[in-house]
């Protein structure tokens, strides 16, 4: 039996949440940016009005303002996006328990079993679209098909606030003329490889001989060909089986390059500050960290390490990240950008073994201190309290240059 799979994608998610929270923004060009004060802040999301001016995700604030002088720059509100993401998922869960999140703003739904009660895929998609609009004040675009790959493709085909059906009996006419890179799994590099083989469209990929694909791309090539032929059979993994967020990152490009370990340590400490509340809001602890460092020649390096035990305490994370930095970075060049990412996240209540030499008492103290800081921040705003080492830092931007990558980019699934 053919399945009915939906892919729901919230349109311009971060920017749309800002606009639905503050309707006076709706008629204006809006960009959600990493940092307002610092010119290194970049556009994380924009609404359609800003898009019409050519503002792109990844633009610097300065570029965005050049393209669109009247643009409203909004700060990101990460917890709010989590809240809306969860509310959307709650609505989806009234129709099926087979929900698989893909980033913060997208989900696959397998609605095969509710076709009898709620109607066909298109009907359910329209109900979801109307409910999300009415109850959350946001729009979604929905792809309806018989596999996950085509459902995802459908949600990209018509935006915003739209439903696209890719049926099993007419998918060739509907999508084979589209460029191959509109398929999930075909990134820029793969797309270039395909172009070398003379493959520009999904249809050409679907008809390419297996040997050719295999020789050039290995198993990936034949898998993509299966996708193009509608033969993706991967399951929508139930929401309670997956951890939607596998890592959280926080990065900063400095106004002035960092030239010594002491300043790097302070910067890392600042970067890690938000991890406590963000991990806690997800009810997760981190088992590892990754550190990304770019020098002022724009060479970059990335290192990973395990944490001694799973934790959500910023100080512990910062200390480990600093140790990693000091042990790895050779100071051939000053540092322009540092990104810290907590990885291998597990649920907080998952049991873990504590090593013999870990100072657990100290950890508990840190956790308490961090909770107290969070209470203060919630009551009086972000800037009420900082560790003393953050004061009087010339190069540190007031608002962090950036605490989240574009939608989907920050939260790796």
């Amino acid at each position, binding site marked *: 039996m053919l399945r009915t799979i939906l892919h729901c994608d919230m349109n311009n998610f971060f920017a749309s949440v800002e606009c639905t929270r*503050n309707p006076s923004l709706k008629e204006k060009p809006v960009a959600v940016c990493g940092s307002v004060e610092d010119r290194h802040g970049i556009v994380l999301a924009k609404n359609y009005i800003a898009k019409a001016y050519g503002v792109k995700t990844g633009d610097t604030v300065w570029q965005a303002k050049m393209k669109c002088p009247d643009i409203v720059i909004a700060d990101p509100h990460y917890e709010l996006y989590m809240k809306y993401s969860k509310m959307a998922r709650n609505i989806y869960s009234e129709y099926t328990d087979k929900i698989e999140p893909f980033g913060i703003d997208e989900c696959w739904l397998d609605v095969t079993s509710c076709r009898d009660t709620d109607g066909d895929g298109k009907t359910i998609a329209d109900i979801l679209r109307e409910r999300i609009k009415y109850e959350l004040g*946001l729009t979604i675009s929905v792809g309806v098909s018989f596999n996950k790959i085509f459902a995802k493709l459908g949600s990209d085909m018509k935006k915003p606030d739209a439903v696209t059906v890719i049926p099993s009996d007419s998918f060739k006419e509907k999508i084979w003329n589209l460029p191959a890179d509109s398929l999930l799994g075909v990134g820029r590099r793969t797309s270039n490889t395909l172009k070398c083989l003379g493959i520009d469209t999904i249809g050409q990929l679907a008809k390419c001989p297996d040997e050719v694909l295999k020789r050039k791309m290995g198993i990936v090539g034949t898998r993509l060909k299966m996708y193009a032929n509608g033969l993706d059979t991967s399951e929508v993994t139930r929401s309670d089986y997956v951890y939607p967020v596998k890592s959280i990152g926080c990065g900063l490009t400095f106004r002035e390059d960092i030239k010594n370990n002491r300043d790097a340590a302070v910067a890392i400490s600042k970067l890690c500050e938000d991890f406590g509340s963000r991990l806690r809001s997800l009810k997760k602890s981190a088992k590892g960290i990754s550190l990304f460092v770019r020098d002022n020649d724009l060479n970059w390096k990335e290192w990973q390490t395990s944490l001694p035990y799973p934790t959500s305490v910023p100080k512990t994370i910062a200390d480990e990240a600093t140790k990693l930095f000091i042990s790895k970075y050779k100071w051939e060049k000053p540092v322009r950008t540092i990104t810290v990412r907590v990885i291998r996240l597990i649920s907080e209540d998952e049991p873990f073994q504590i090593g013999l030499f870990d100072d657990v008492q100290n950890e508990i103290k840190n956790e308490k201190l961090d909770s107290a800081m969070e209470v203060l921040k919630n009551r009086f705003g972000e800037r009420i309290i900082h560790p003393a080492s953050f004061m009087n830092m010339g190069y540190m931007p007031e608002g962090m240059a950036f605490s989240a990558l574009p939608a989907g980019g920050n939260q790796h699934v």
Partner: protein
Amino acid sequence: MSQKIYVRVNASFSPEGVVLPRSFIWTDGHQYKIDRILDARMAASKRVGGCGMRYTISVGGKDSYIFREDDRWFMELKETSC
């Protein structure tokens, strides 16, 4: 523009977890009794932004909305002047 007004609310909580607003204190400092609740559903406020459980209430013969968003309640103040 309409304005989002957070209000102090007295509410009843049933053992089943149903929350119903009974009265609220408006910007004029007066407490208004909610005579009837005509409807309750999840909804976004198009006027002032935000979303939550939206109650359609009848107060002194007039109908109005009151929203419960997380642990706060707000109403929409319609301004005609600007």
